[in-house]
């Protein structure tokens, strides 16, 4: 019996994604090279990062062609991390202000 398992996509698809990942990496490197600052820098870094991550997960890891049952089981739980991120950021802000108050800004 021949295996019908596995996904058949043309090789050109992978080469295109590979090329896109190269371009996105170059762009995020250029953000540093041209010394962008502030909101523009963070916005660009996060945008390129999410695009790259999305391409890797959906195409290279074949998530785009899986059933919703496994997509949700894998991709929803990490959203809890955003809660942890938010709580830690609030906590860190508070600690930073306390340190400024007690140690002085000179450290």
């Amino acid at each position: 019996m021949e295996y019908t398992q596995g996904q058949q996509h043309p090789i050109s698809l992978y080469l295109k994604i590979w090329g896109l990942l190269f371009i996105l990496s170059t762009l995020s490197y250029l953000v540093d090279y041209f010394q962008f600052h502030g909101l523009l820098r963070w916005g660009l870094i996060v945008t390129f990062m999410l695009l790259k991550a999305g391409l890797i997960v959906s195409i290279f890891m074949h998530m785009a062609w899986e059933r919703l049952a496994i997509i949700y089981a894998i991709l929803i739980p990490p959203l809890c991390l955003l809660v942890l991120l938010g709580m830690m950021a609030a906590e860190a802000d508070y600690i930073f202000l306390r340190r400024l108050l007690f140690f002085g800004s000179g450290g």
Partner: protein
Amino acid sequence: MALFPRGPAVVENRAPPAEPEAPGGLQGFYLDWSSDREAFKQVPWGKAMMWIFLLSDTFVFSCFLIGYMAVRMTTTEPWPNTSEVFALTLAGHSIPLILIAIMTFVLISSSGTMAMAVNFAYRRARIRTGLLMLATALLGATFVGMQAFEWSKLIGEGVRPWGNPEGAAQFGASFFMITGFHGLHVSIGVVYLSIVALKVLRGHYESSGNYQVVEIAGLYWHFVDLVWVFIFAFFYLW
């Protein structure tokens, strides 16, 4: 009979029920989870387990990165400028972050060769699959080599987990912990891929024609690349 497309728990003494094509979309999601049996239809169990392992690994790496965020936000000392710390002098010019950029391209290339290996595996092109996997492992080993170079360069400059000449002491702790744990993953991946590649080349999977192992190894490898995307953005570029 050695084929386990949905796991080994096949009841022998009755014919498998003729399964109608499972509906997709939200209705499929609901039916899959409420059917009181396998939820992940059309997903081999090895692949499902690898995904769940990767999910747990996501939490580990995220905890490291969020911890790094916390120490970086709370320190009152200036954070070292990664652009300068990781600059290399090539042909008389100091190029910022160049080694990290090259490492990024090497790892992305290894992901590209791995994706093609998975594709050739399902076409049962055994030799091409094995060679592409070995190429992936080689690129991974190159990455680890460059990371070793980076570590020794920084250690030579006096960066330690408890302090460094450039600024906040927490920089060293975050750097060695995060890149070290990632490098360990890459190293394990190199060994893992090499073993599977050699088995593929020897024709170990020819009799069953089941090349899912290649895709499962590929998932692990793409995940290692995925983690690097986040480390590159948050640790090196931020």
